[in-house]
Structures are given as C-alpha cells and as structure tokens.
C-alpha cells in the first residue's frame, strides 16, 4: 500500500495546498511519495524531500509542465499510478481539474473534497454546500481522493529525508493549448491561508466603494474576500470569491461587510473561528453565524472601524 500526493506549485513556490494534502496522506500511511511535475524547478522537489514523512519525491522536468493542462498532468500521473493504492491532490481548481480524469482512466470512483480521514477506507466530506456531512467508504482497491486543504494542518517542513527520483516523461496532448493566465497580484496575505479575512458583498455597491475594504484589510494585515454577487457585479475579480463555488476559508477572524449570508456563501466561511458581520438589515442570515454582529450602515461603520484600528495601532506602539 503506497500513497502518492500530486504537488501543486507554480515552478517557483510550493502552494500551501500541497502541505495540507501531504498531512492528509500521512494520516493514511505514514510514508508519503510526492509527484512534482514542473519546468526547471528541481529546487522545489528538493524542498519537498525535506518535509516530514516524505519517502520519495518523483520529479519530472519538462516544458510541458510550465503551464500544464489537465490532459498532460493526467498522462504523467497514469504513467506511475499502478504503483500506488492511494492518489491524493488538493480539492481546489488545480486538483479538481485533473483528478476525475485520473479516476475515470483508472475506472475508479473519486472521493471529492475530503475534510476528515476516519479510517484508511472511510472519509468524511461535505455535501449540499456543507449543510450535511457524508461519511463514505470506498470499496475499491485504488482510492482517488481530493482533500480540502483548509481541513488539514500543513506538514512540518523539515525532518524528512526523502529520496529524489527524476524520471523522464514527455507524452502530451495535441488537442489543447495553454494561452495565458491573468493572476491578480497582491501584497496581501493569500486568501486561502490568511489569519484574518475581510470580505465585501453587494452592500458595497461599487468597485470604488469596495476600496474601503482594502483600507481595513491593510490595517489588519488581512486577505480580502468577496461574495459572488460582488464578483458578478465587477467590484473585484473572481479569485476573491468565497463560498460553495469559490474558495473555502477558515481564518481566525472573518469579517463580512454588506453580505447577506446566503447558504452558498456560508459554505465557504462558516468554519472560521470568529465571525464578525456588519449589515444594516437585522434579519440578515449572516447574523445567525456571527459571533459578533453589528447592525449598521457600512458606509458609517467602515470609516469608524478604520479610526478605531488606528487608535489600537498607536496604543500597541
């Protein structure tokens, strides 16, 4: 029984999702192998080999993996998958894109978005936007699993002595071409792992007003999120979206500004440790999950919040 994790990285940095997925894998079997497909990123393979519990890092270096498409990632995994009884990847847009392909080609049913490993064949996963939790048992020899990164701690980045095995593989699909990627660049903490997240909703009314959120975020060193309505209306880009069809976040503090609290939004943030909601409607469902609710007009509350945080910061200095 061997366990393989598919590493997510961007050729310069290992994504935090990889660290959580390794933790999940090591709960199934202590020793974990990791597949790193990349272009000129041997240094990342080396880095992973030092993580706790790593037995081996399989490294494939090829230009194909500079901006890999799902078809090509799948081919590389299938090339080695017969050696493994478990294959794990993060349940984000990276893993979701190719894992079902690996499953279909292996004639295995995939288990998506696992939040807890009960036993080596039994897993807990949210369904219905997290309004129910299903315990499921796989009765197949091979298990193909995606892991919700925020449900597992990152692996400790040292203490391991994995070997690195470099293999050659260059099969690729001729039917798909990567064109480009538009990434939002930000100096702020990453939404998926930030300690504090402040999100804005339709209540902000415009992209211009949404900048009030930025100001608070800077004072709290917080990441910024948004409701789907705010993204749809063009206040911010799609990578800010929190919820059932966006990102899942579990910060220590989540602040929802002008967000009503639809179940699809709650799906992405209701596991946060402390939830704060500011909304002018006292009936807004967001207040049902908020630890601290403030019924107020956000256009008055946000400038006040900004001032109060300044006061705190001066006291702290």
């Amino acid at each position, binding site marked *: 029984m061997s366990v393989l994790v598919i590493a997510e990285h961007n050729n310069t940095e290992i994504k935090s999702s990889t660290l959580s997925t390794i933790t999940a894998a090591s709960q199934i079997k202590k020793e974990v192998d990791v597949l790193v497909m990349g272009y000129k990123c041997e240094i990342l393979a080396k880095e992973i080999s030092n993580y706790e519990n790593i037995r081996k890092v399989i490294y494939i270096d090829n230009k194909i993996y500079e901006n890999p498409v799902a078809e090509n990632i799948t081919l590389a995994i299938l090339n080695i998958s017969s050696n493994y009884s478990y294959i794990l990847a993060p349940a984000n847009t990276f893993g979701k894109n190719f894992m079902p392909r690996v499953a279909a080609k292996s004639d295995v049913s995939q288990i998506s978005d696992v939040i807890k490993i009960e036993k080596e064949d039994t897993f807990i996963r949210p369904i*219905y936007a997290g309004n129910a939790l299903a315990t499921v048992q796989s009765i197949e020899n091979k298990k193909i699993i995606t892991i919700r990164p925020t449900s597992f701690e990152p692996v400790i980045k040292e203490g391991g002595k994995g070997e690195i095995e470099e293999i050659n593989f260059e099969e690729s699909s001729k039917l798909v071409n990567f064109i480009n990627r538009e990434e939002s660049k930000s100096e702020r903490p990453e939404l998926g792992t930030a300690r504090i997240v402040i999100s804005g909703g339709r209540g902000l009314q415009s992209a211009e007003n949404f900048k009030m959120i930025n100001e608070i975020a800077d004072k709290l060193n917080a990441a910024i999120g948004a409701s789907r309505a705010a993204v749809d209306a063009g206040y911010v880009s799609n990578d800010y979206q929190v919820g059932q069809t966006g990102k899942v976040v579990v910060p220590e503090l989540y602040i929802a500004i002008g967000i009503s609290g639809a179940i699809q939004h709650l799906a992405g943030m209701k596991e946060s440790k402390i939830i704060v909601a500011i909304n002018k409607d006292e009936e807004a469902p967001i207040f049902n999950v908020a*630890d601290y609710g403030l019924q107020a007009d956000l256009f008055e509350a946000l400038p006040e919040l900004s001032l109060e945080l300044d006061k705190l910061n001066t006291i702290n200095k």
Partner: protein
Amino acid sequence: MMKILVAVKRVIDYNVQIRVKSDGSGVETENVKMSMNPPDENAVEEALRIKESGKAEEVIVLSIGNEKSQETIRTGLAMGADKGIFVKANDNCEPLSIAKIMKKIIEKEKPQIVLMGKQAIDDDCNQTGQMLSALVEWPQATFASKLEIKDSTLFVTREIDEGLEKIEINLPAVITCDLRLNEPRYASLPNIMKAKKKPIETLSAEDLEIDTSPRIKLIKVEEPSKRKKGIMVNNVSELVQKLKHEAKVI
C-alpha cells in the same frame, strides 16, 4: 452543422434549506422543491446562444436519473432546446457511471460539443465533465466563464483560484460551465407550451449496458455541528474592544 449535447441534473432547489433525515440515511427530498442544477442552466443557455449564432443546428438536453428527471429535461426544452434524452437510472448514480452513460449517448448522437455544469450543488463532486472528457478522449475546458468558437477551435476562459486562464482546444470537446458564463433565460409561457410537444427519447442504463452499482458506500449523513449563537454589539468601538480583549484575534 454541429450538434450540442447538454447534460442537466435535477437537484434540490438552491434556495431550499435542506434537512438531513433523522435516520442518517441521506437528505430529505420528499415534498421539497426541485430544479435544474444552476450551472446546468448556464450550459443550456450557452448551447442555445451557439445555435442562435448559426454555429449549431441542434441542441439536445440529456438527463439521467429517476422518472422525474424528465421535468428537468422539459425545463431545458422550454428554454429552447430541440429534443430531450432521458436515461432512467437509479438515484444517486456516481459521477463515473454518469460519465459512462454519457459516453454511450455521445457515440449514438455524435455531438461536437458537450456542455454541462461544473458541479452539482447536491453532492458537490465536480467530476463528471472531466471524467467524460477522459473517457471519450476529447479535450476538456472546465469552469468556463467565456467561450469563443472559431471554426473547429474553441477559446475558453476558465475561472481558477489564481484568476483567469485562457486555453484553446480542438472540437469535439467537453466544457463545464461556471455561473458567470452567461445569464440564463427564463422560459416564456408560449415556449413552455411548445416544449410539451417536443420529443423526449427514453432509454435506461441497462439498455446502454452500463453497470451503475455504487463503488462508494454511504455510511451516514449528518448535520454539521451548529455554531454557538453570538451577540450583537452596539457600535464599532465595542466591536473592536471585544475582538481585542474577548476573542483576542486582533
């Protein structure tokens, strides 16, 4: 001219607060409002727009499940699709079985584009489109928020965690749709009437020789633990004090 196949799933309406059955066997679906899975509506809409632009001549809506899935097919027909295919299968088929059934339908109907939602809002699996693409060996474009067809090439903008990604794929292809792909139309009353006369072909998983027996056993379904009820604060200054001294998070 092209044919487009759109797969649609009947799910509990997204506005319904679901209830977990007290015996832990699943989620209550009796007397609960059911609708077309939301991103599947975007898939139907996109197919209709491609047809209206003159690039396709037929839009087929497919649904797989119990008898009532035919209602969901009717919704697609009322939006403007030309014909329906209903494949009778047990409820809660796993995505792999659905993908295998769809492969059979593709062999029969020979569409050039398959459109479907990126995930169903009931089991939240996000698998079927990718599985189908792998099984038929057509390229995939998942989480699509923009499509452009030029001859036999499809330019797709995909929503990814980092932002947006553009890829170019050859037809035939499988596309899974994001809610931002378009604004689905409402079916007008005359179109709902017309849809009643449109043909729905009925098949079954057995007819297609697909074994849909589950490979994943559902042990139990339970409600997540509820959050403890919080408090309302009176003003911003109180809020900041609480966050600082009580919750100790700032």
